[in-house]
């Protein structure tokens, strides 16, 4: 390497560093892949919110569905709620996991804002949440007909998230083209 070219070494180093830093700007450190992707939905036996019966895993699997972890203390859950209502109207099955919440508050919430859920699993002490690797509501899991978790979305599900991420996967699972 000629002495002239050597002069460019700092510039090249800088460019490489800048590229990495630029990439780092776009990465969201909070976005973690779930450890449960392609794993079966955990076993549970918990009360249902709407009736006094217990529900277990077998009662909620069998078709491609969304599992939405929500709570009345969660502000973003209120934001995404109207969109969940809309999804239900489109025929997407949604199960609710009422995470560390008060039953009375949750029932009132559903009465006031509409109930998009097939049924709600009461996870009062967060044990199902822990098994799912939930670290904050809202979280939404896409589960296939065999009860295997295919995707986890952390944060609000809105039209953009549904259209760009969840719907394509949902369609694939419906048509049996497992990725």
């Amino acid at each position: 390497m000629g002495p002239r070219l050597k002069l460019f070494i700092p510039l090249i180093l800088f460019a490489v560093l800048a590229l990495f830093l630029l990439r780092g700007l776009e990465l969201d450190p909070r976005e973690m892949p779930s450890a449960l992707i392609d794993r079966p939905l955990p076993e549970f036996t918990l009360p249902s919110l709407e009736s006094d019966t217990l529900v277990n895993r077998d009662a909620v699997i069998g078709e491609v569905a969304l599992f939405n972890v929500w709570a009345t203390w969660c502000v973003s859950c209120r934001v995404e709620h109207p969109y969940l209502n809309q999804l239900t109207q489109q025929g997407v099955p949604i199960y609710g996991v009422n995470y560390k919440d008060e039953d009375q508050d949750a029932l009132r919430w559903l009465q006031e804002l509409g109930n998009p859920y097939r049924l709600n699993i009461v996870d009062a002490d967060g044990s199902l949440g822990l098994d799912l690797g939930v670290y904050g509501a809202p979280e939404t899991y896409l589960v296939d007909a065999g009860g295997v978790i295919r995707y986890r979305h952390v944060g609000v599900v809105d039209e953009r998230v549904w259209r760009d991420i969840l719907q394509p996967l949902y369609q694939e699972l419906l048509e049996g083209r497992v990725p």
Partner: protein
Amino acid sequence: MNRYCAAVLLLLSCFVMPAAAVIETYEFSNEELEQRYQHLSAELRCPKCQNQNIADSNAPIAQDLRKRLYQQLEEGASDSEILDYMVARYGEFVLYRPRFSGATAVLWLAPGLLLVAAIGLALLVLRRRKDTGGPADSELSAAEQQRLHSLLDESESGS
């Protein structure tokens, strides 16, 4: 003087904060479990707050994980069983010292490889300097000597 008192008070108040941050306490059936609890809760990273371990964090999820950790210790689970349990739910991410695997190999090996590369590079540069540089180069050639003399003569006659 008052100002100094105020400054000292202010400084002291800084030390009060951590004491107020003590979170819930658990009664362990023996000393060893408590030590393992302290150790493990410092090794596990809070998934929500990310830059804190679960021992330091007040986040609800950290509280849940501490509670689960306590229960597991009391149930007689081994350290690796507990870590496996946490990793199965929250991924490698939850460990402050991730295990060696394909995904974490770069993380573990990079510092050593970089050190070796740096030492290699330093040796290479030093050796080359010894080959080309050194005392031989610092002596002036005949032409340079002559020029030096003429410059010195000039400045002497000039002053």
